[in-house]
């Protein structure tokens, strides 16, 4: 028998909407978002009940029955377990497997049975006497947010019993203190910090089978030294956030539950990720210091907040065409991704805005650079988003709120050299991105090549442009940016390196001769170096971007206008000529192409 209850919709009060639009959101706002996530998880479970193949639903029902038993006596506890981010990750993954949108790595019964493990965790926390079967994989059974236990090899399910406070999994008694590691039992470790009366308690999740929802390489079990290092980073990051970024800290304390460490082998640089399936969980690579962790937490939690809001209301239509330039990625993005990036980097700009005025910060120039860099880029993107025509009414209001905050920040002075260096970094990325992802109309490129050979002016008119998405989805290394960072954050060391070319080359082994000359601010020589590099490696985008920056530093000219405005046209014509055995001077060709008008890129 079905039950048509008068279900209330979730609401987003105006005050919370405004807080979120301005880039923030307090603990109350986060509570509202968490409540909506719990409803989403329950809807997913409801959908799983209907979608489960015959014979598999009982695995799901066993978990739901036990959760219902917990809920009857301890509703808050059941609610707390259900809102856990990795419950969302599990439910979303299981649904996608059932709908064939993703491939499962285990039998569907194992996925569906995971709700019993969630329920067992709730029953354990409630101190219930209970019995339930939970899934096992490769000799391991997992109790979400508690730990993993070794079980019989080959078992697909194992019994969990709670009797008078004693816990047994597959016949093995678990320690009374579930945070104590012992043979066969691996507890989930937690990171804690308190500062200024505000505490944070995070799971350092290297166990949950659904923690890899971020689609990167989540680390397996960390050793004690790695856990201690994470705790030290949290000890450094949390006071910084609480003291100087209280609004962000309060939201993070209210909503962040789980840090999933990225495999150390993946990268040593700061790559982090957030899944819209798992509000309150983020994947973070081992941070180099507390400040790096602090800004990563701010950035990723911005994604989480926006993702949860988008689960409640539509801010844009469902146009998913990857066609927009995002100054923080190497690939074209759909509008939703662009908005997400803008919101996240708005948090980053807000972080550095405060950091630069904080006496405790060692290097204020670096904070100025980062603030200048990200406020400009976000501002540029917001203009594109507004003009896209894809925002809903609520989306228009939301972006207006973002813009209002940003306008205040744009009015704030930033001392030299940060603005010029930030402009260089922006143009460096934009030039490479256009060459990488935009393809001019081949027929018109042929016409340009013909005109060049005959010494004519380029044909007039707008050149159609097509977006060709690249394979890479994230930022790639940019050694020129690394050198700028070194110049700003460690000026003494950078000056030493400039006096020692061999040491400079050692410090930046992937830097080209052009990059090193450019770093020394020898721009005429850098132009010469980049010209030679382009002749030797004509398809290397980074040489073209380097030439662009060096030429502009020497003197803005028609060539720099072309290379900044439509480098992909210069690049395409050059490649065609080189393919025919000709080697025009790159900047002479750019100068000739300055009058070209690129069309609006289309997918």
């Amino acid at each position, binding site marked *: 028998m079905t039950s048509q209850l008068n*279900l209330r919709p979730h609401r987003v009060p105006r005050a919370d909407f405004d807080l979120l639009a301005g880039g923030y959101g307090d603990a109350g706002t986060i509570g509202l978002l968490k409540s909506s996530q719990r409803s989403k998880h329950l809807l997913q479970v409801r959908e799983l009940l209907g979608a489960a193949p015959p014979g598999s639903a009982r695995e799901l029902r066993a978990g739901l029955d036990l959760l219902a038993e917990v809920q009857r006596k301890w509703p808050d506890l059941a609610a707390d377990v259900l809102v856990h981010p990795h419950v969302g990750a599990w439910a979303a993954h299981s649904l*996608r497997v059932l709908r064939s949108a993703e491939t499962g790595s285990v039998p569907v019964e194992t996925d569906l049975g995971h709700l019993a493990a969630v329920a067992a965790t709730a029953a354990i926390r409630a101190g219930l006497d209970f019995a339930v079967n939970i899934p096992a994989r490769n000799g391991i059974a997992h109790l979400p947010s508690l730990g993993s236990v070794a079980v019989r090899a080959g078992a697909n399910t194992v019994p969990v019993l709670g009797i008078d406070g004693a816990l047994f999994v597959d016949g093995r008694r678990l320690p009374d203190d579930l945070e104590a590691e012992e043979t066969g039992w691996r507890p989930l470790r937690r990171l804690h910090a308190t500062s200024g009366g505000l505490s944070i308690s995070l799971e350092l999740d290297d166990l949950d089978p659904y923690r890899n929802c971020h689609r990167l390489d989540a680390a397996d079990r960390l050793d004690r030294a790695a856990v201690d290092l994470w705790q030290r980073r949290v000890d450094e990051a949390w006071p910084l956030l609480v003291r100087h970024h209280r609004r962000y800290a309060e939201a993070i304390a209210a909503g962040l539950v789980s840090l999933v460490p990225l495999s150390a082998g993946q990268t040593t640089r700061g790559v982090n990720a957030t899944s819209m399936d798992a509000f309150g969980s983020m*994947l973070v690579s081992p941070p180099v210091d507390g400040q790096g962790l602090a800004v990563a937490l701010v950035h990723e939690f911005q994604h989480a907040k926006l993702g949860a809001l988008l689960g409640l209301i539509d801010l844009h239509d469902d146009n998913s065409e990857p066609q927009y330039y995002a100054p923080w990625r190497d690939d074209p993005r759909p509008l939703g991704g662009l908005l997400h990036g803008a919101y996240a980097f708005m948090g980053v700009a807000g972080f550095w805005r405060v950091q630069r005025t904080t006496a405790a910060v060692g290097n204020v120039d670096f904070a100025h650079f980062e603030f200048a860099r990200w406020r400009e880029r976000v501002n540029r993107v917001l203009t594109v988003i507004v003009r896209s025509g894809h925002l809903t009414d609520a989306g228009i209001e939301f972006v207006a709120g973002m813009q209002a905050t940003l306008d205040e920040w744009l009015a704030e002075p930033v001392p030299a050299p940060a603005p010029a260096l930030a402009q260089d970094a922006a143009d460096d990325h934009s030039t490479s991105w256009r060459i990488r992802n935009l393809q001019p109309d081949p027929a018109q490129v042929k016409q340009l090549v013909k005109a060049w050979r005959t010494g004519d002016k380029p044909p007039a008119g707008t050149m159609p442009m097509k977006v060709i998405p690249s394979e890479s989805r994230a930022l790639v290394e940019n050694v020129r940016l690394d050198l700028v960072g070194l110049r700003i954050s460690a000026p003494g060391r950078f000056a030493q390196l400039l006096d020692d070319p061999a040491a400079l080359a050692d410090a930046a082994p992937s830097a080209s001769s052009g990059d090193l000359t450019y770093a020394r601010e020898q721009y005429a020589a850098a132009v010469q170096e980049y010209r030679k590099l382009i002749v030797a490696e004509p398809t290397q985008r980074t040489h073209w971007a380097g030439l662009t920056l060096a030429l502009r530093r020497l003197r803005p000219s028609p060539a720099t206008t072309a290379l900044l405005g439509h480098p992909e046209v210069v690049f395409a014509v050059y490649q065609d000529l080189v393919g025919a055995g000709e080697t025009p001077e790159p900047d002479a060709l750019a100068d000739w192409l300055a009058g070209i008008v690129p069309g609006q890129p289309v997918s």
Partner: protein
Amino acid sequence: MDLADGLESDLVDLGEIGLDKLGRLDGPALERALRRVRDDAARPQDALAGFNSAL
């Protein structure tokens, strides 16, 4: 658009629902909310990755 009273979501609030009733819930509001869940389940999730916090 007047947002003075805030925004109403298609997402229904299941916070007060007994879990033993979850499988038997029905009705147009629930169906609207489930539609979004189904849409999400029909496509792979793209994690939002790539922030480089270390220069």
